[in-house]
């Protein structure tokens, strides 16, 4: 997935104005007495702090990181692939608006998922309230938006691409040298930290970092043409 917009512009520091629809009601859970924050959580927190200071690029990286997770979560809740991206987008916008109120008591992704779940719930509730809409009743712009979403998410081509991406990545991993394959699986599938992987593989942390990068780079060399091709 790629971001096509320019990240160059910076905005002012965030204001704290949570949305009023109940999706943000003081629901930052506390990890009381919990495990220490993982590297990803600390990294997220660092990006959040930067976004709170007005670095929009930092927030965009959080979107890049969590886009698939949030879309997947929302799609499962709504059981509607077409609507999932709209709701996921709404969740990200709400998160951005409320970022000023995020204190870091919980992991960022926990907070973000909660917003996504509440946004999806609101959508489900409003879906029950509103009558069925037929395309004939939509304005031209609404019709165009629906068609655009259909084009992006719900076509057989899009689903096939998704399947192809899975196959390509798994094939690429299968072709990696054993030390790279082990490192990337321990990281991506098992979620171990570099230190834990280093202990498991009996090598320095720096080597783990390098192996994981080389594994990703090898996968990317196969994945990039597929992603580029689908964009054309």
């Amino acid at each position: 997935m790629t971001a096509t917009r320019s990240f160059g512009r910076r905005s002012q520091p965030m204001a704290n104005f949570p949305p009023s629809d109940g999706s943000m009601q003081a629901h930052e859970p506390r990890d009381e007495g919990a495990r220490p924050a993982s590297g990803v959580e600390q990294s997220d927190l660092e990006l959040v702090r930067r976004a709170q200071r007005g670095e929009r690029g930092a927030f965009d990286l959080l979107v890049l990181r969590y886009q698939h997770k949030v879309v997947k979560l929302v799609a499962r809740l709504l059981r509607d692939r077409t609507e999932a991206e709209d709701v996921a987008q709404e969740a990200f916008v709400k998160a951005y608006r409320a970022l000023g109120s995020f204190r870091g008591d919980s992991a960022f992704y926990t907070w973000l998922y909660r917003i996504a779940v509440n946004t999806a719930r609101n959508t489900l509730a409003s879906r029950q309230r509103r009558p069925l809409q037929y395309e004939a009743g939509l304005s031209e712009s609404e019709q165009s938006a629906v068609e655009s979403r259909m084009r992006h998410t719900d076509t057989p081509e899009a689903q096939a691409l998704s399947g192809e991406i899975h196959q390509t990545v798994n094939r690429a991993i299968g072709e990696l040298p054993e030390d790279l394959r082990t490192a990337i699986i321990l990281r991506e599938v098992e979620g171990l930290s570099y230190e834990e992987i280093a202990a498991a593989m009996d090598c320095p942390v720096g080597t783990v970092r390098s192996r994981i990068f080389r594994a990703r780079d090898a996968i990317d060399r196969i994945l990039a043409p597929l992603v580029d091709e689908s964009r054309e």
Partner: protein
Amino acid sequence: MTDRIREQISALIDGELPEDEVGLLVRRLERDAQLRETFGRYVLAGEAVRSPGGQLASQGFVARVCAAVEGDAAAVQPNDADAPTRSRWNRPALATAIAASAAIAAVLLVGRGSNQVGQIAQATLERARDSFASLPLGQASSPTPAHSQRLAGYLVAHSQFANTLGRRTAWSSVLASDPGLARAAYESLEAP
């Protein structure tokens, strides 16, 4: 794009990049679209490994979110979060208040029976109109027919207590200065 930077991106995704390197990399990512694409593909690959068959965000999803966030940020100026709301609400209220002050001035002066009432009312109304014209433009700032009608009704109701000569002078002057107001006043008089 060097291996070192891509390795930093990989470490950033895993939350393993030293804190002092994060800032520089984030700024580099802001500037470099290719690096962001690499970041996005690394994330995509990880997602594909973890959940085969799960729905992935479509091409362009991030761009749409960023555009929405950008639009949102533009709509709400962070340094003065409630300013747009305040001005949106206050513009018609201010305009109505200025117009009402003109009407009140006219009504009060009518009571004195001065021949200058019309001129004073006219001048006040012109000042009000100038002030209104200097306000930021926007749909919401336009006085609605309801505002004009309410103002006209106010004038009509209060003019009943003014003497006839002064009332005619001030009233006709105010109405003559604003055809819309005259029409609204006429309609309010005609209304049951």
